[in-house]
């Protein structure tokens, strides 16, 4: 069983699994789902019923979201990994047998597993799920969090390590016979996956990172270059740069955008929900936001918008239907899309015209919004921009 990726006419839409809890409404970020918050009325903490263990756990909530996403038209979902989250490999393994088509996009930092072991784990997941795993390779980050993980390598070294990791990962999986490698970070001697594992599909690779070191590594190994949403001119410039650099190496890379959406029947309702969420934020939430750190270039690029200092939600509207305060409402990228169903779809079409071939979308709460976006927004996305780009390439 293989899962066809996007063609000239189609766009890959993924959803996102919230791996450290969810919020039940964007209008009131204090109302939560998951055991990251105390059990009290208004908070739903799976696993406890009237304070007593009830035999279920957070994975049951994630299973709900994965099923909602696959039935709503999403190919699968990103499974993020941070110090406070549950682990993507464990989540994917648990959900593999109770989903049908959902593709598990594991966020993974290559330094944390030996590449041969990672290949065997991935191939096992392919066997258990029917070739439904893929990677979001993360390399940047850093600062105190990197030492928390027990990883001492510097930012640029880590990209060199990622390149070596993927050399070996692919080499033992799809190489012609036993594979040798003598790198600076990894070595292997006569390594190979057994035939039953090697015959599964090599996972697609979504690759994140905005620095030059990241682009060099992405050009060699990535299938998709993944970026948070930035102002559209910056997105266009970045995608053009990545595609040119990869083309120079004789490879083709596609581009994808990870973005949150608040879409409602009318634009007024969408902004009213943004306003309600923004105005329910306490000063402690803004302080916590200011303290987020790390040496990630992507994070620095987005932090330029200083959402924590905004007095009114309108101060964070950076373009029509683009709001730069999403990170205040929940962890993650700052810039997201706000508008009617038609406007949200139109923004996605504009990004497609600028070079996007895929999206990782998210909305709060992840369960109900998977249905809403799948039912109301995805049917309005035409993908015309992609067809036109393909047409231009064909004649140019």
């Amino acid at each position, binding site marked *: 069983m293989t899962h066809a990726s996007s063609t000239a006419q189609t766009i890959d839409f993924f959803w996102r699994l919230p791996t450290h809890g969810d919020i039940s409404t964007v209008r009131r970020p204090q109302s939560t789902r998951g055991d990251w918050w105390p059990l009290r009325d208004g908070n739903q903490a799976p696993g406890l019923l009237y304070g007593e263990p009830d035999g279920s756990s957070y994975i049951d909530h994630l299973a709900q979201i994965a099923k909602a996403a696959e039935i709503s038209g999403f190919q699968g979902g990103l499974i993020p990994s941070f110090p406070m989250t549950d682990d993507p490999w464990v989540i994917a393994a648990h959900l593999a047998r*109770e989903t049908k088509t959902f593709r598990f996009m594991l966020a993974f930092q290559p330094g944390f597993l030996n590449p041969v072991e990672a290949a065997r784990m991935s191939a096992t997941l392919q066997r258990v799920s029917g070739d439904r795993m893929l990677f979001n390779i993360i390399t940047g980050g850093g600062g105190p969090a990197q030492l928390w993980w027990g990883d001492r390598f510097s930012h640029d070294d880590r990209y060199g390590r990622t390149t070596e990791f993927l050399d070996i990962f692919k080499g033992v999986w799809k190489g012609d016979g036993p594979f040798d490698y003598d790198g600076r970070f990894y070595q292997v001697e006569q390594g190979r996956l057994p035939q039953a*594992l090697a015959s599964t599909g090599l996972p697609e690779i979504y690759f994140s990172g905005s620095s030059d070191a990241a682009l060099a590594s992405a050009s060699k190994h990535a299938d998709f270059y993944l970026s948070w949403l930035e102002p559209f001119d910056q997105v266009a410039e970045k995608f053009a740069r990545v595609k040119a650099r990869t083309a120079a190496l004789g490879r083709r890379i596609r581009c994808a955008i990870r973005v949150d959406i608040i879409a409602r029947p009318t634009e007024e309702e969408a902004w009213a929900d943004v306003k309600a969420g923004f105005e329910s934020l306490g000063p402690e939430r803004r302080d916590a936001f200011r303290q987020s750190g790390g040496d990630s270039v992507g994070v620095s690029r987005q932090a330029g918008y200083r959402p924590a200092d905004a007095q009114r939600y309108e101060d964070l509207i950076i373009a029509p239907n683009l709001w730069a305060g999403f990170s205040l409402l929940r962890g993650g990228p700052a810039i997201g899309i706000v508008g009617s169903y038609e406007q949200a779809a139109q923004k996605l079409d504009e990004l497609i015209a600028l070079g996007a071939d895929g999206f990782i979308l998210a909305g709060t709460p992840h369960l109900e919004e998977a249905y809403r976006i799948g039912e109301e927004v995805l049917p309005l996305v035409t993908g015309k921009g992609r067809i036109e780009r393909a047409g231009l390439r064909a004649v140019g």
Partner: protein
Amino acid sequence: MSPTFYWRLPGADDARNRAFDALAAGNAPRLPAANDLRHGRYGSFDHVVQVARAAELVAFDGLVASDDPEGDAALIVLGALAREVRRLKLVATFSPGAGSAVYAAKKAVSFQRYSGNRFGWALESSDDAARRRRLGDFVGSGDLGARLEDFVTVARGVIESAHFSHDGPFFSVLEGGFQGPLSGRPFPELTLAGDGAEAIERSARLADVHAFTLGEALSERIALLREAALRAGRSPQVALRARIVSHDDGARARLEAERAGLAHAPDLLVGSYDELAARIVALHRQGVDRFELSSPRSLDEVYRVGEHLLPRVRQLLGRKAA
């Protein structure tokens, strides 16, 4: 304490697993006359699930997934089983050379959260240096014990403490430890193995379970572990790994073992249900707390053991029916 019974899941060396993997899409049909609809739909995992469900239904206590370079990764297999098997303990075998100790600990925490604290680790590295290098593990044979201890130190530190720092020869962490719902989860039950004095002494200090393989001088090995544990002020359980072929007729059991090429295997328990029940009770009285069994006919033997052998063991020990 009554002995507990764990089943080792069939792996790449299991004939039925191999047959199921041969159902991969594109392979030639296996049934010459039938319209065979299985290809591309089934693989060895479907067989593994049936064995696991069988072990749960016939009152085993846990499952062990092997770390076989020719087979699947234990952690993924057990993760996929955890939703289908709701009571059994799940023990994943892997090497401390497989990756970072913090990363392994984090997986263990999620596993505990999702499975109701049923997850265990069996940490083992191959003695064969060439085989380790094939797996990308270039640590020398003389350093494997030190690496294992460093791995356990870091993993235990970040699971059991909120602010853990360690700068060891193999693994390090700064201000590590899990917060919120990821904190306070039990460290996975730790099984270590080995017959040498160094391995036994290490288990006395670190392991919850020390696994021996059925063979010569078992009493002496158990005594060495007990002495070392006494010195360390601990009491790890003793597990015994064995292959088993049982039948109501002992001669038939021996015939089946011979067909499987196990007639002279030193780790084989073979015989009638009555013979084997007496043998297991005797081993239990010798000091074995846990039996970790496997068989070349995994599914059939799980039922035979669960339906015929374990009831006899319980009767001999004066325990209630399960």
